[in-house]
């Protein structure tokens, strides 16, 4: 009917809005990487290189040319789908990103699923029973979640579950060395192994995933639980909840169909923020669990002024943010009919 094309138009409009954002990001990421201290040519030439060989490398990398020329060369490469070579690993940046980004996505996604599964019920229960023991538990978990640094929780979990109890495998990357990585489909090991029908590998990949995901999840749990509790409390005060109760609707219906669907909107926003934040900022978790993710890659590249890698990282993260925001907007319009009406 009328409502569908209107929402489609809204989505299309949002997509168009992303274009200037992307252009801006290309420019800013290029300029920022040039502003980094340090000279990639010096790093690439090695400690024993002479002035001349450094100069030679600089010319071969195109770094002797003026900034606009470098920029247009960079944009030209981008248009051809090339992100350049990483000078520290010698690999094409695109290849690195396509293997490392799914690793980060898998970890963050799983962590977020875990924290949603814990935080939302906790928040809902706390909101429906203010000042009960569950409310106090919610407050405790939230405070603990934000105040314990991830490297500490990570190490503590490793100590407990790997060293003391021996339940979990060694915290050494995405898959134990005994297994071969599954054929690449999505880049998510658990899913790829399941697609392949290799349940043993899937189980092993999952076993590797649990501890880092829980570590990250404990940290992201706090904002989600807080927001769920606050949003639910506010919605439950609403007049329409009273109407629903006065009409004799069951507690279940009032709580989920009426209250939660209204309260979910700010929670979705928080989820989006937490996800994008966790994806780029979980370097510590990746380091503790030797997880070959994108965060640690970016930090290493940054340290050695690896322009191509840093630009590739910034660009892929920006793309991800844009897609994520678009997804949130679309979810919003699906949940809230009032939004579809604005143009």
């Amino acid at each position: 009917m009328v409502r569908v094309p209107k929402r489609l138009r809204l989505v299309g409009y949002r997509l168009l809005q992303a274009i200037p954002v992307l252009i801006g990001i290309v420019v800013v990421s290029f300029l920022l990487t040039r502003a980094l201290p340090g000279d990639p040519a010096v790093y690439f030439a090695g400690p024993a290189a002479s002035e001349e060989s450094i100069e030679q490398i600089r010319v071969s990398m195109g770094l002797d040319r003026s900034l606009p020329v470098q920029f247009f060369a960079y944009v030209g490469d981008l248009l051809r789908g090339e992100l350049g070579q990483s000078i520290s690993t010698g690999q094409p940046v695109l290849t690195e990103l396509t293997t490392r980004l799914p690793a980060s996505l898998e970890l963050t996604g799983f962590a977020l699923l875990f924290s949603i599964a814990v935080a939302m019920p906790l928040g809902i229960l706390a909101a429906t029973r203010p000042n009960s023991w569950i409310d106090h538990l919610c407050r405790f978990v939230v405070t603990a979640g934000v105040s314990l640094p991830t490297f500490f929780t990570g190490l503590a979990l490793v100590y407990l579950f790997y060293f003391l109890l021996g339940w979990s495998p060694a915290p050494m990357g995405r898959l134990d060395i005994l297994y071969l990585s599954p054929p690449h489909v999505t880049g998510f090991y658990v899913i790829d192994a399941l697609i392949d029908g290799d349940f043993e590998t899937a189980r092993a990949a999952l076993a590797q995933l649990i501890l880092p995901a829980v570590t990250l999840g404990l940290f992201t749990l706090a904002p989600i639980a807080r927001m769920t509790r606050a949003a639910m409390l506010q919605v439950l005060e609403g007049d329409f909840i009273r109407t629903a109760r006065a009409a004799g609707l069951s507690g279940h219906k009032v709580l989920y169909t009426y209250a939660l669907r209204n309260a979910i909107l700010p929670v979705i926003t928080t989820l989006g923020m937490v996800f994008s934040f966790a994806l780029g900022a979980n370097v510590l978790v990746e380091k503790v669990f030797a997880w070959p993710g994108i965060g640690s890659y970016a930090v290493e590249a940054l340290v050695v002024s690896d322009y191509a890698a840093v630009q590739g990282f910034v660009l892929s993260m920006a793309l991800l943010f844009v897609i994520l925001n678009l997804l949130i907007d679309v979810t919003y319009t699906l949940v809230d009919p009032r939004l579809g009406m604005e143009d």
Partner: protein
Amino acid sequence: MSIPLLDIKALTVEFGTRRGVVDAVRQVSVTVAKGETVGIVGESGSGKSVTSYAVMRILDRAGRIAGGSIVFGGINVGKADERTMRDLRGREMSMIFQNPRAALNPIRSVGRQIEDVLIEHSLATRADAREKAIDVLKAVRINDPESRYHAYPFELSGGMCQRVVIAIALACRPQLLIADEPTTGLDVTTQKAVMDLIRELTAERNMSTLLITHDLGLAAAYCDRIVVMEKGRVVEEADTATLFADPQHPYTRRLLQATPRLDSKVADLLPEEDSRRRTPSARPPGEALLRIQDLVKVFPGKDKGDEYRAVDGLSFEVRCGESLGLVGESGCGKSTTSSMIMRLLDPTSGSIQFNGEDIGAVPGKRFAGHPARAGLQMVFQDPTDSLNPRWSARRSISDPLMRLGNVRGSALRAKVEALAEMVGLPEHLLDRFPHQLSGGQKARVGIARAIALEPKLLILDEPTAALDVSVQAVVLNLLVELRERLGMSYLFISHDLNVVRLLCERVLVMKAGRIVEQGPAEQLLDSPEHPYTRELLAAIPHPPAGMVPSPIRGEPQAMVR
């Protein structure tokens, strides 16, 4: 007399607060017979809503039925388990509320919300729910119910939303309908339509109704019997006719007196011994203070050519010392007009001359610093929302003095105290915050703030709409007094002709952005020319004439209705 459908006996409801337990309702007894309409009338804090929530057992967490009994159709509501209550609510007794738009789930289509109730009470299955929901929408006289079924509350007008709330309440054909201020905030004509609909449907189905309202006029027009509540207690109970002809309790008398009737003067609203009574003195109209000419405001629509003319060629004058009433229903453009005069909105075309100066030509964004700004002030409809919640009353009143009057230090202090005295706000309340003040006190703060700079023109945008009638009576008299003392002119904006008449010499009736009728207030009310004015007048519910302290006390009952 047969057994009543609802029998409330000596009900006491307690609320646990930070300062200990408070009795919101004390020893209240009310009965409602089958097919009867009973009104519970009282001002805010009288416990009338709490009583109804107790009947439905939907009190807030802090509330508790502490004593007495509520028997509905043989079931002891106070002792019934939650399961029984859930079956009763919506199925046997249901409730409609104030603020219909907020009373509906904003993100669920109205049809689905009706279906939810039907399915919950097993009156429909998933297969036929939609058809039955559309039938229910038809029953509340909603046009084009098939397409309204898909509408969301934000797409409907306030009156339409209230019809949907009624549809939800009556979907399961309950025996008792509790209507808690069902028309507060709606226009008079919408109020009449909604109340007539309720009366018609409940009569058709031989239902009982409990109407909770602060408006005696409304209760008089629609109830068989009226229970008057004050501070959690029932002070009087009588047939509607008897109550109006011969009110016993002093509170009832005060309430009756404060309710404006067709013939009452503003001083009549307060008891004779009240020193705050004022009579507006007719003064010769001075020169034109505000002159509006061909004022137009066009809002762009969603598509081209789909524009909306909110104000469409408006011309009028407010003279020095005059009070002009601007009356119309929501959407008629009266608030857009006041926003343009205050220069919060830029007009599309036309001129606004204030005190001989064309302020319409000053861009709205820069008007805040314009010298003419101090001469124009506004009193807003909602006394709570129009005050900064983090500012004390003193700070709120000081604000215009500091910003536009450049008053500082001890002079500021003295001026604020003088203003507080002028509006009747005790000095010790000046350091309180809005949430620590009553509605009437907040209204006084709003008025003190508006008159602080001794404006020439005060725009009053429904200044008493959110107040209890007794407070309204005091505030209206205060406004009369202030006008005389300060020589201000008023532009009084309201949907209620009856209130406007009390304060204004001349009235404009607005509809769809245009003036349909204008003239001296008395003349307009006595012999309205335009059908729309007549419609507005007819829609106002009045308490019957012939009550204390008017001389026709004790006249035959024929006066009633």
